[in-house]
C-alpha cells in the first residue's frame, strides 16, 4: 500500500515539462489520426441555424468579425460556416469589423467562401465595409447612420457607388446580425446598442471563455442563439453538413480535456495521501 502511495506522491511532484509533453502529444496525435467522435448539436447552436434557415432568400445580413489570429481556431470555423450557410441560402452579406485584426480574418473568410467556393460578386452579393476605430461608438454609429461612419469600403471604393448599399442607411435596414466575437468590443456591445434597441434579431459565435457572460442574453431572448467555442463551431459544421477545421479539432480537444481531468484526479489523490501522512506524523 505504501509503495502505491509513494508512486502517487511521485506522480504528484512530476516535473511540469512532462505535463507539457503529454499535452502536446494528446493534441497532436488525434489531429493526425482523427477518431471521428459523434457531434451532437446543442439547442443554442440549433437555434442559430434555424434562425438563418427561416430568413427569406435575399435577406440582408450583417456579419461582424471581431477576433484576432490568437482565437482563430475557435472563431474562424464559425465565420466560415455562417458565410457558407448565408451564401447557400442566397442572402446578401455585409461585413464589418470592430477589431483591426478582424479585417484580415474577414478577408481570409471572403477569399475562401465568397470567391473560391460560391463565386459571388462583390458589391452585388456581399460588401466588405471593414474596420473603424471607436469600439461601441462604431456600433452606435451603424445603428444611427451607417453612411456617416462608412463613406468608403475596405477597398477604398465609395459606398454610394456600390449597388448592394442602395437603401442601406442604418442598422434597421438589416434583417439579421451575426457577431463572431472574441471579446470587447463584440457581442455584448451589439446586443446593448444595436440588436436590443432596434429589435433586429442577432446571434453570435464566441470563444468558450466568453460563453458565461453571453449566456444571460441568450436565455433572456435578446439573442436567438450562440455558437459556444470550438464545439459550437463543430456543431454548426455538422448542421450545414460541411465538415471543417472545428470538427477535426474536436477529437484533439476531447482527448486533451480528458487528460486534464485525469491530471486533476491524480493531483488530488497525491494531495490526500500527503495530507494524511502529515496528519499521522
Amino acid at each position, binding site marked *: 500500500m505504501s509503495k502505491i502511495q509513494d508512486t502517487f506522491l511521485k506522480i504528484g511532484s512530476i516535473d*511540469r515539462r512532462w*505535463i*507539457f509533453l503529454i*499535452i502536446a502529444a494528446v*493534441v497532436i496525435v488525434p489531429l493526425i489520426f482523427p477518431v471521428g*467522435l*459523434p457531434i*451532437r448539436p446543442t*439547442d443554442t447552436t440549433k437555434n442559430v441555424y434555424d434562425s438563418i434557415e427561416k430568413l427569406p432568400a435575399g435577406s440582408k445580413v450583417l456579419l461582424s468579425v471581431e477576433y*484576432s*489570429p*490568437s482565437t*482563430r*481556431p475557435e472563431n474562424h470555423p464559425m465565420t466560415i460556416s455562417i458565410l457558407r450557410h448565408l451564401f447557400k441560402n442566397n442572402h446578401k452579406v455585409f461585413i464589418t469589423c470592430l477589431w483591426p*485584426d478582424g*479585417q*484580415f480574418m474577414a478577408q481570409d473568410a471572403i477569399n475562401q467562401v465568397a470567391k473560391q467556393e460560391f463565386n459571388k460578386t462583390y458589391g452585388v452579393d456581399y460588401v466588405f465595409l*471593414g474596420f*473603424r*476605430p*471607436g*469600439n461601441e*461608438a*462604431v456600433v*452606435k*454609429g451603424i445603428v*444611427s*447612420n451607417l453612411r456617416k*461612419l462608412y463613406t468608403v469600403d*475596405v*477597398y*477604398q471604393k465609395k459606398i454610394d457607388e456600390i449597388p448592394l448599399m442602395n437603401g442601406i442607411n442604418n442598422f434597421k435596414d438589416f434583417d439579421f446580425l451575426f457577431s463572431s466575437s472574441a471579446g470587447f468590443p463584440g457581442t455584448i456591445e451589439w446586443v446593448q446598442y444595436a440588436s436590443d434597441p432596434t429589435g433586429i434579431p442577432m446571434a453570435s459565435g464566441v470563444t*468558450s471563455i466568453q460563453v*458565461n*457572460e453571453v*449566456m*444571460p442574453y441568450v*436565455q433572456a431572448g435578446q439573442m436567438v442563439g450562440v455558437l*459556444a*467555442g470550438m*464545439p459550437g463551431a*463543430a456543431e454548426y459544421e455538422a448542421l450545414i453538413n460541411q465538415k471543417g477545421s472545428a470538427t477535426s479539432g*474536436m*477529437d484533439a*480537444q*476531447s*482527448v*486533451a*480535456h*480528458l*487528460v*486534464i*481531468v485525469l*491530471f*486533476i484526479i*491524480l*493531483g*488530488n489523490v497525491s*494531495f*490526500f495521501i500527503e495530507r494524511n501522512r502529515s496528519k499521522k506524523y
Partner: protein
Amino acid sequence: MIWKRQIPILIVTIVGWITLLGWFIDQPDIQEFVNDDATQWFDILASFAIILGALNLIKLQVQKILYQKPGWIYSVVAVMGFLFAITAGFFVKGVDDSVAQWGAHVTTDGTLFKWMFDYMFSPMSATMFSLLAFFVASASYRAFRIRNFEATLLLVSGIIIMVGRVPIGSVISSWFVMYLIVLSAGIYINVWKKDMNTTFVFVAVGISIVTIAGFMYGWPIDKPGIFYLPAIQEWIYYYPNVAGARSIMIGIGLGIFATSIRYILGIERSYIGE
C-alpha cells in the same frame, strides 16, 4: 487654472447630461447629437488616441534602451517591430497601384503589410495563445484541490463542463456516471463511518440497483438525463452560471451608473489629474 479645471469639468458635465437626457427626451436635435455627432466625435478622438498611444509606447521603449534598463534588448525588438510596421503601413506598399491602392493594401495579398500580418503577427499571436493549453493543464494539476466544500463544487462542475462540452462527453453513458457516483459515495461513506462492512453493503446495493434499472430500461446512453454529462453541463450553463453572470452584470451596471453620476456632477475628477 480655469482652462485646466473648470472648463473641462463643465464640458464633461454638459455633454454627460445631454447624453443621458438623450435616452429620455424625444427631441430631434438632442437625438441627433447623441446618436450621430457624439459618436463621430468619439471616432475622431479615438483616432488621435491611437497616435498618442503609439508615441507613448515608442517613448517608453526608447527610454528603456537608452538607460539600458533590465530587459532592454526586448525593447529593441519592440522598436524595430514598430518601425517595420510603420514602414509597411505608410511608406512601402510592395505592389503597384494597379494591385492595391494605399489603404486597401492592408488586406491585399502580396503587400508588405499583409506579409507582415500573415508571417509575423499571426504565428506569434497564435503561439502566445496556444501556450495557455499547457499552462492550464499544469496549473489545474497543481492548484485544483478538494480542500473544502466550495472547492469540491467548483472542481466537480469544472470537470462536468470540460467533459460534457466536447464530443467524448456524449459517448459516456449516463449509467457509467451512475456507477461512478455510487463508487464515490462509497468512498465518502467509508471515510465517514470507517466501517468496511457498511461501505461494502452500500456499494453492493447501489451497483445492484443501477444494474437492475439498466436492464429494465435497456441502457439508453442519454437516459436518465440527470446523469448524462452533456445534459448536466447544459443545465449548469443555463441556470447556475446565468444566475452568477447576471448578478455580476447587475453589479457592474450599478457601478457604471454610480461612476457616471460622479462624472456628470463633477465629483469624479481623475481625468484632469486630480
